[in-house]
């Protein structure tokens, strides 16, 4: 398929568009979902830490010495397992009963790690120094006892029993507890989205294929029209294409109509001109040779003959020229040949002429107009019958390119008697029709065979005819990309060879 400007493949275009869109959507959706999930996990994690913190605060008790202690162990067993990743710690920030400690270091923290979970073992969590207001929850990312990143929350409390005492309650957990489910989720999400994208791509492919199928059908229909198998594009098409098809069919119909009208006009003109010509010629013919107006009569006769030739020639030519480029023309050969042979049988019945159709496969068809085919074959067959002594044979065959082009003849001698039939130079169009018309008449000398294709040239003036027949045959054949020539016939007379484009 050739791609003109603005061309390209519609399928590719649709596919590319869909795929880009799918990819974009999937990537954005993946990113958003991942973010949402991570946020959710983090919030939940934070909430969990807060719960632990609240639990810790609830269990927190200050004994009589002002030392903090836990009323009960925390429910989560991970607090008891060393380096489990979940830790708590209580720092004593300020103690009215231990003023020295505060004054000593000038540090806000009086006794860090006053109470710690077992999971911390002997490590004391260092808290970044930001001194939040009492009761405020603060989150920090730090490093844990095993060096793993840690998420911690802290809250400064003042126990009701000892309002002068500030305790910092800390709960921390490995950040991996957040990262892990997020990573797992994102892996799954990626796989799921990839599957979705693949599924969408396949669906798009199928959709484009199915959606564009009518176009393939349209192409087949057009090919059928071009090859002459059909006169119009058949069948129903989707609503988007049907108007196109109808327009195209209308153009085809209009073409055919224009040709038909041109033909009718040509015919009418022929009728209108030829009847007066007949009258004129006959009037002139009745003039005696010794009459005073004999010269005028001869002039009239000659000019009438000339006019007739011109009218015939130009009518046939213009008709053919109009039809040559019309697509969708297909004329089965056999009925035309049979019709002509019926005509010849009847017309030459008195002479005992045997006119035979020796070979003509049913499926052979001419890619062109029926009347032009009749014009060519009619002239050739008529010519053969005019000159034949007693026998005319017609045969037709398909001529494939590149093949050795054997003559489809029942007489093997035919090939030998054929001086230049196979050597015709020039490009051969794909497949052709070859029609051979043989007669057993006197034939023509090799050098005269070309000459009779000239306009107005007649081999013999005795037999009626305008001398137009052969020239118009060749002209028509060539207009259609075929050819016509004369050869010696194995029957002894002349063989007319007509090659024409084949309709599939």
């Amino acid at each position, binding site marked *: 398929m050739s791609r003109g400007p603005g061309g390209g493949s519609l399928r590719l275009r649709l596919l590319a568009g869909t795929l880009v869109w799918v990819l974009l959507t999937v990537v954005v959706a993946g990113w958003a979902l991942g973010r949402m999930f991570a946020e959710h996990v983090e919030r939940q994690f934070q909430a969990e830490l807060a719960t632990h913190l609240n639990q810790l605060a609830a269990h927190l008790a200050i004994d009589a010495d002002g030392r903090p202690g836990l009323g009960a162990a925390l429910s989560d067993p991970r607090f008891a397992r060393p380096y489990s990743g979940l830790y708590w710690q209580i720092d004593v920030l300020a103690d009215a009963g231990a003023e020295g400690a505060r004054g000593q270091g000038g540090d806000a923290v009086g006794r860090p790690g006053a109470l710690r979970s077992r999971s911390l073992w002997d490590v004391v969590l260092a808290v970044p120094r930001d001194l939040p207001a009492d009761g405020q929850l603060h989150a920090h990312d730090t490093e844990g006892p095993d060096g793993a990143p840690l998420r911690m929350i802290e809250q400064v409390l003042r126990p009701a029993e000892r309002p002068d005492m500030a305790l910092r309650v800390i709960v921390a957990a490995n950040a991996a507890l957040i990262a892990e489910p997020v990573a797992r989720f994102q892996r799954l999400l990626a796989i799921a989205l990839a599957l979705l994208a693949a599924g969408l791509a396949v669906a798009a492919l199928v959709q484009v294929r199915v959606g564009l199928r009518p176009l393939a059908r349209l192409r087949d229909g057009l090919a059928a029209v071009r090859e002459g198998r059909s006169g119009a594009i058949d069948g129903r098409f989707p609503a988007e294409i049907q108007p196109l098809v109808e327009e195209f069919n209308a153009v085809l119909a209009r073409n055919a109509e224009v040709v038909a009208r041109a033909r009718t006009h040509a015919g009418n003109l022929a009728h209108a001109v030829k009847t007066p010509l007949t009258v004129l010629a006959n009037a002139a013919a009745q003039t005696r040779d010794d009459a005073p107006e004999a010269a005028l009569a001869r002039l009239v006769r000659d000019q009438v003959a000339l006019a007739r030739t011109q009218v015939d020639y130009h009518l046939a030519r213009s008709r053919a020229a109009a039809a040559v480029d019309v697509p969708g023309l297909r004329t089965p050969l056999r009925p035309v040949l049979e019709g002509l042979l019926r*005509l010849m049988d009847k017309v030459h019945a008195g002479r005992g002429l045997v006119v035979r159709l020796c070979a003509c496969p049913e499926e052979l068809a001419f890619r062109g107009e029926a009347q032009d085919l009749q014009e060519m074959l009619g002239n050739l067959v008529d010519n053969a019958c005019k000159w034949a002594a007693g026998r005319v044979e017609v045969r037709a065959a398909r001529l494939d390119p590149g093949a050795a082009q054997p003559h489809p003849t029942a007489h093997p001698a035919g090939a030998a008697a054929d001086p230049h039939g196979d050597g015709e130079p020039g490009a051969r169009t794909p497949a052709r029709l070859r029609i051979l018309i043989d007669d057993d008449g006197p034939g023509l000398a090799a050098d005269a065979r070309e000459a009779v294709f000239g306009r107005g040239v007649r081999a013999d003036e005795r037999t009626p005819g305008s001398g137009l027949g052969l020239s118009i045959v060749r002209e028509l054949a060539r207009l259609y990309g075929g050819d016509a020539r004369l050869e010696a016939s194995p029957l002894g007379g002349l063989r007319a060879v007509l090659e024409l484009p084949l309709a599939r």
Partner: protein
Amino acid sequence: MRILVVEDEPTLAAQLAATLGGAGYAVDTAANGRDAGYMGEVEAFDAVVLDLGLPIVDGLTVLKRWRALGRTMPVLILTARGDWHEKVAGIDAGADDYLTKPFHMEELLARVRALIRRAAGQASAEIACGPLVLDTRSGRVSVDGQPLSLTSHEFRVLAYLIHHAGEVVSRTELTEHIYAQDYDRDSNTIEVFVARLRKKLPPGLIETVRGLGYRLACPQ
């Protein structure tokens, strides 16, 4: 021998009638398909020259109707279009030959004569009956090689008899084939023509079949 000329162009019709009349045929003319159809149905013609492009009813339709009604007279069609399609259609409709306009009158005459001869089952251009010979190409009659001088009516009677040699031909049939339609017909005049012919021909050639008509008896 009686011929129907169907042609809508009056000058050409007149020329055709003149040519055929001059060759010894009785000629009727029709200028449109309706009249032609009617004439061909009810009258007896030995041949018809039929133009295909006719007003009212076209030539092909007229011809098909004749054939459908069993009218078998030979028909020569005239076509101006020169389409082979039209010629084939004409032959398929029942025509026996065609001529493409413009044509020479001699050609037309030769075709008409050949058609009439063929319709009578005569292969040769010369029809012989014993010493009597009719050359259909020239329209000359000779006895033992000696040309015979005949009036046009005598010629028509003899030509019809010789085309139907050996058959009994009734007076009515002769009348139908000898006069054009607008002619004042009188079957008694047939007897006059036959009597004159008998004087010019060798005796016994024209037999009278009592109550039926005449027969040209050719000695073997």
